[in-house]
């Protein structure tokens, strides 16, 4: 709990706009739906328990199509400039970030280096899921596009994404010093005091 002598209602600062939050929660919902249906298609124990392969497969494919459409719609209709700025920030792994990754306590921007890597991997995995998923679909229909490793890539991405997800959920929901960040993704705002401690470079620049 905060020990600062601030008034009961702490000062807040906006961290995520509505566009960013919409993108996050849309992706999260689609991910869980795709993970659930994907595991039913992939794990023998679940496949045989649920069966109805054709139905589950169709749900999986149509959720994926809806996910792709929603991504494009949010990017186009939402605050595109803001998303572009986010991506610029995420791609920039500066000297402070590299020191932070080596375990040093260095001031961080709106995203710390770990969050940047998580975001880079999440986007890369999403694109590769879409690519390998598309070729799984096409390859079944036209065997000229049935490449040997497509299924393995799709499966491996599942493993890697689940590892990433577990870390993300731990930090967002359980770990005491970081879980405050969750309200940034639900309400859009975080406490200024918390932000000073965890994202000093961002708050200082924002308050100038």
């Amino acid at each position: 709990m905060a020990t600062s002598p601030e008034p009961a209602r702490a000062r807040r600062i906006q961290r995520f706009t509505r566009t960013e939050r919409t993108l996050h929660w849309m992706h999260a919902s689609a991910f869980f739906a795709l993970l659930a249906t994907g595991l039913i298609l992939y794990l023998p124990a679940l496949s045989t328990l649920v069966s109805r392969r054709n139905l589950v497969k169709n749900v999986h494919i149509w959720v994926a199509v809806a996910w792709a459409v929603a991504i494009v719609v949010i990017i186009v209709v939402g605050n595109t400039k803001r998303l572009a700025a986010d991506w610029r920030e995420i791609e920039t792994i500066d000297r402070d970030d590299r020191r932070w990754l080596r375990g040093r306590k260095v001031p961080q921007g709106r995203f710390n280096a770990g969050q940047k890597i998580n975001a880079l991997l999440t986007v890369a995995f999403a694109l590769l899921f879409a690519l390998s998923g598309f070729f799984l679909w096409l390859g079944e229909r036209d065997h000229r596009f049935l490449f040997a490793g497509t299924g393995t890539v799709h499966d491996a991405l599942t493993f890697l994404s689940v590892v990433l997800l577990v870390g993300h959920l731990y930090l967002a929901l359980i770990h005491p010093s970081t879980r405050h960040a969750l309200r940034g993704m639900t309400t859009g705002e975080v406490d200024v005091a918390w932000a000073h401690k965890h994202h000093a470079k961002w708050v200082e620049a924002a308050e100038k």
Partner: protein
Amino acid sequence: MNDRTIGRASFLGILGAGALGLFYARDVGNVLGRVVPQSVSSIVPTSGWRIYTVGNSMPTYDPATYRLTVGGLVDKPASLTIADLQKLPRANQVSSFHCVTGWVVDGVRWGGVRIADLLDHVGADSSAKALRFVSAEDPYDDSLTIQQALLPDVMLAYEMDGGPLSRPHGAPLRLVMPRMYGYKNVKWVKHIEVQASTQAGFWEQHGYDVDAWIGKSNGYFS
């Protein structure tokens, strides 16, 4: 290299590695398959068998009630237990299993009966041109021409890899047609209809080719 290229290069590197993986990752998966213990890979497949079922639940084999019925264009319609089938000449073979979705299992050992021996037993009519294999898994079925079914490596298998066929693999009886994709290899076979022509099976009604030759079917121009 500035601060931004590090992140971008890593991002593009991962995308490139993933795209290359479409062509080469199966070899990596196969290596993993040898390293990962059987107990793990039976829960989380790294390579090899996937179990696909289409019905509401997987059929259960009860030796007391199970009968393979053979009907249609035959002189003597038959109703056979697995023990009856085991009295027919036994055939063994080792063959590969190719799924239409891309995975392959090599060196599967099958034991069972050849179609020719079964057809002799029931006396197929000369007008018969095809066999339709009906699964206990409703609504799954598929058919082969008699010519295809009489190829030397086609059989009705009641044994796999040295033991009785297991439930996920179609106990007690499945069709083995190694030259065609897995969806022709009907599991949980309970009825064989001897008929004048083939008809589209379950997956064929969902767009797959009826003549499912491996490497020569399921292409737009094949």
